[in-house]
């Protein structure tokens, strides 16, 4: 094989490998914020699923939330196969039950809200799953970066005295 052909082939293979790694990273690195609601689900197909007395949520061996009635907790998760352990006390003074939960998180959703009473009642996904939509707040008009004097001169940028200077 000619040197030039070999070089082109090598470059092509390298690009292919990099694209494959990038694609893999996009799948395994997708981050989600998972919210846990310990709230009563009212009137779902004529039934009410009551909030638990206490729920302790453990994700990756770390206790991320301790929820009383009507509480919401959260955890961040990288990837689509979400695992958590729930320690549920249904009624005051009752025994705690341990549940190991495996969920498949949808790739396209950033924030996922899980209603724990509905999830543990093994209801269909539509009952316990909803997308977290951040509240839209009116923000004060932000100064457009770069606007200033004609040459962008100023004490901050030019002397390198911006906030991050101490962090070089």
């Amino acid at each position, binding site marked *: 094989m000619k040197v030039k052909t070999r070089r082109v082939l090598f470059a092509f293979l390298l690009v292919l490998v990099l694209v494959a790694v*990038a694609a893999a990273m996009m799948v395994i*690195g997708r*981050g989600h914020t998972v919210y846990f609601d310990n709230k009563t689900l009212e009137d779902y197909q004529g039934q009410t699923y009551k909030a638990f007395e206490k729920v302790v949520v453990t994700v990756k061996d770390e206790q991320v939330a301790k929820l009383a009635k009507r509480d919401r907790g959260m955890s961040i998760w990288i990837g689509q196969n979400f695992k958590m352990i729930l320690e549920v006390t249904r009624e005051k003074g009752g025994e705690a039950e341990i549940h190991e939960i495996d969920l498949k998180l949808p790739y396209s959703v950033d924030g996922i809200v899980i209603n724990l009473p509905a999830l543990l009642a093994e209801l269909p996904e539509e009952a316990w799953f909803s997308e977290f939509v951040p509240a839209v707040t009116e923000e004060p*008009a932000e100064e457009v970066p770069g606007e200033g004097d004609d040459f962008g001169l100023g004490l901050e940028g030019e002397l390198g005295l*911006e906030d991050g200077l101490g962090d070089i």
Partner: protein
Amino acid sequence: MNGKKNIPAGKRLLELVRNNAVPIMFIIICAIFIPMAGFSPSYLLNEIVTRMGRNLFLVLCLLFPIMAGMGLNFAMTLGAMGAEIAVILVADWQIWGIPGVVLAMILSIPFSALLGFICGTLQNMAKGREMITSYIINFFINGWYQLIVLYVMGAVIPIIHASIMLPRGYGIRNTVSLLNMRQCLDDLLAIRVAGVKIPVFTFLLVGLLCLFIVWFRRTKLGQDMRAVGQDMEVAKAAGINVDRTRIISVVMSTVCAGFGMVIYLQNIGNLPTYTGHAQIGMFCIAALLVGGASVEKAGIGNAFLGVILFHMMFIVAPGAGAFITGDSMVGEYFRVFLSYGVITLALIMYEAKKRMAKSKAGQELAAAQVKKEDA
């Protein structure tokens, strides 16, 4: 060897001091400032180790253009800009942790390589004035970067998340949070020794780059680069494609700078969109020069020593400034003034040394001619 032995010890010492004036000056400054700042040794060590992990990769990427005789590559900032665009996209796609860092590094390659190619081509048009050319290219490309980030992103390039977009609906905010990838490389395999956190994985990456540089110097391309760096005409006569070799050195430098910038940003945990890259080139060059490098000669050792000394000065200067004047802001100004000052000093010393060597060679030639005529 014998010639060296014949030189008196005093003269040799003077020569040593003259050759290492900048590192010696910084060692003295640090020695004076450390007790004034009053930091504990473990705090200083912790800070130095953190900053080494953060900056070494960026400083090492400057070695390639020096090898090819193109001086200090102020255009490493272009690689940083490429990395910042990649990091913005990764933050918008919500790819977190180590996969996010890896993806940002891969995505930065085409941006950095393209910008490096443009820079190398322009530098070839301005042979002998590479440093000032690369410095001005920075401003030129920075304008394009601002245009893309401020107007194209969100308007043409889709940006999904409002959290990184300006409230007007296009353009990227002044600061992009990288909280979900913060220190993910540094924490991987990290160990604590006497209260000092050592980011083992980051140091492994730096070590890999060092090994690559050592190996690369011995390859055909590395030898070509050194030959071009020593004398372009001779290299050309030897059949080396000088322009291509020089472009490759700049591309390698900008691509490595892109990787270095991703490592830097994951350590900091946020991206100052419009200013993040601005000072990087200057501070990395200053650090390399503080380590005893010159415009035409630099090694891995210079990068390590430079980062340690330069950042030691950065850590202790505000404390020392506060101790001397009662105002820590003076220390802030002092360290900025010193970093630019050291670049100026190193450039002047390099030029003075070059002229001295030239005049010495001229004198020797004249003396030889006189001797020949007398004979």
